[in-house]
């Protein structure tokens, strides 16, 4: 590392403040995005045709009671003040009470979120474990049949409606072949048998050594995760292929070949290492979009996750729950993307200096 003087002389900041500055600017844009997100959900909540006061007092309330609640909810104050109050509530984790479940929305979200997390995590894992080698393989054999197969698979995974794939999967693997369990997270007679401190059934069952429950939950999970995983796989394989082609055309690869390195070493030790760094962002993006994209999959598989919570609340005009869910998913989405961006900055020496 250079000392401060020479760094100042060349007009370059030393590495540490640079990293700090990158982090700071990421935090600023995170904050701005957060403000934007909450502003939009706030506006959506206000333009709703439903009267929020009537939702609380009911339509038979007296004029007096209506006025009192109207004032209590702060609806007479200027709009920016209402927004600040709303922002304050969100920052303290208060999304109001769900009309549907009559519990605080935050509590509901904590109950439903682990199911989505479980689904999205396994799907991303499937996407990485199959997608990355497939992408590398396709790039190495560019233009041959494996490359075309990977391309077609990639486009198919991107073009097929995920809810339709889920239904086909249920029809074939559950209805006809009986290989996997049907909709839901676990068979009803196993429900509640295992303590669930984390809410992630696979983890809790394994922790308590309840392998029967573990396998039951797994057979419920594998189909929806596989369907979402296909989407992840398509994207990851496509990007891996294009990054890999990029690297294989570089001069250092040629140098390694001239040096007499084996093909395996050239591909995996030289080129792939650089690809891996670029893949961090892609995997982060996939994970974030799976957290969001599981809405439709959860509906098909009756999966009690956050996506299903949001859609059911939507049909019950339960606005607190819808907006709370939207904000939480939005924050996760933005947060994961920022995190992978930061990771990339620290992993790639070129982005660091």
């Amino acid at each position, binding site marked *: 590392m250079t000392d401060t003087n020479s760094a100042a002389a060349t007009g370059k900041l030393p590495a540490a403040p640079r990293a700090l500055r990158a982090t700071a600017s990421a935090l600023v844009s995170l904050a701005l995005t957060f403000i934007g997100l909450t502003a939009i959900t706030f506006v*959506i909540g206000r333009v709703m045709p439903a009267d929020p006061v009537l939702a609380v007092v009911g339509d038979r309330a007296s004029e007096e009671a209506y006025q009192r609640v109207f004032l209590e909810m702060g609806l007479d104050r200027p709009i920016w003040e209402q927004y600040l109050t709303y922002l304050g509530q969100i920052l303290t984790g208060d999304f109001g009470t769900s009309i549907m479940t009559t519990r605080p929305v935050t509590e509901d979200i904590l109950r439903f979120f682990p199911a989505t997390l479980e689904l999205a995590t396994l799907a991303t894992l499937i996407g990485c474990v199959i997608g990355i080698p497939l992408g590398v393989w396709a790039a190495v054999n560019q233009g041959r049949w494996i490359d075309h197969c990977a391309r077609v698979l990639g486009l198919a995974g991107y073009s097929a409606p995920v809810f339709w794939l889920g*239904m086909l999967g249920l029809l074939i693997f559950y209805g006809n072949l009986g290989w996997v369990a049907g909709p839901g997270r676990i068979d009803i007679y196993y429900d509640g048998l295992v303590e669930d401190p984390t809410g992630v059934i696979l983890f809790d069952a394994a922790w308590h050594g309840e392998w029967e429950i573990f396998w039951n939950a797994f057979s419920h999970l594998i189909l929806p995760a596989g369907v979402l995983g296909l989407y992840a796989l398509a994207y990851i394989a496509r990007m891996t292929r294009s990054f890999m082609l990029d690297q294989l055309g570089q001069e250092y690869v040629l140098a390694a070949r001239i040096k007499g390195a084996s093909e395996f070493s050239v591909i995996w030790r030289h080129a792939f290492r650089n690809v891996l760094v670029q893949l961090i962002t892609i995997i982060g993006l996939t994970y974030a979009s799976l957290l969001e994209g599981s809405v439709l999959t959860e509906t098909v598989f009756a999966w009690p996750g956050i996506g299903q919570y949001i*859609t059911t609340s939507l049909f019950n005009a339960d606005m607190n729950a819808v907006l709370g869910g939207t904000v939480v998913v939005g924050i996760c989405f933005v947060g994961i993307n920022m995190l992978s961006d930061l990771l990339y900055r620290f992993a790639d020496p070129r982005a660091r200096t």
Partner: protein
Amino acid sequence: MSAAADPQGAGLRAWLRSPSPASTWQARAQRAYLGWVAFRANPIAMAGLLIVVALVLAAIFAPLLTGSRGLDPDLPNRLLPPSAEHWLGTDQLGRDIYDRLIWGSRVTLYIVGLVSIIVAPIGLAVGTLAGYAGGWVDTVLMRIVDIFLAFPRLILALAFVAALGPGLENAVLAIALTTWSPYARIARAEVLTIRKADYIVAAEAQGASTWRILRKHVVPLCLASVIVRLTLDMAGIILTAAGLGFLGLGAQPPLPEWGAMISTGRDFLYDQWWVPTAPGAAIFLVSLGFCLLGDGLRDVLDPRSGEA
């Protein structure tokens, strides 16, 4: 960019290949012709074009291709399997699924077209303005674009529909609200590369107004990348619309929207599998077609960008 009105009749090919075009119109026609030649050489892109053209034809000639509009229930014939009379079987109300699919192509095109004509002008306007004006206008506009880019699109569209109420038009509006931001990004990037170009300076020196420069010299150059991106996004737009329809938030029955058809067909998945399967296959085919077409168009119109 159609070469249909050819001023020289028989010598069309020679006119299109002439090394020294005599008019702007001829130069443009030549450009389009060269693009077409490159595009035609790409079989995958041609397959995409074929699918999209088939979709448009199906939408235009729907009355000729079908026996009914697929709206009237025919309860004695409900849930029939595919046969010579009903190619794709009938649904839970006895309506012919093939007829509904063909008429549904109109709904799909309506959604796609409406989203495009909302999204492209907004993106172009914001992007060119930000890129050309620079300074704080640029900073503020791009911050807004970044905020929209960072959002989870499907969830946000859901929230918008929740506020606006379910329905086809509201679904379109919700999709447009969550789709416009990348276009502003693209347009701005294009503008930044040409803003300092000599011909812009020349136009400025001739006293052209900012509005005229933007309209005549800047926007046309951004169009190619916007169109490519739009074609590539079509699949996503169709899938989102179908997803909203599937959740019951998009087109409402009895409109033959493909996503809504899957949703109602879900109850018959295990016993009458063709009811939900056929519309899903249609969505798959059409979004695949747009993907392939977009890939091919990108290679022709935008040789700089590789995989993105």
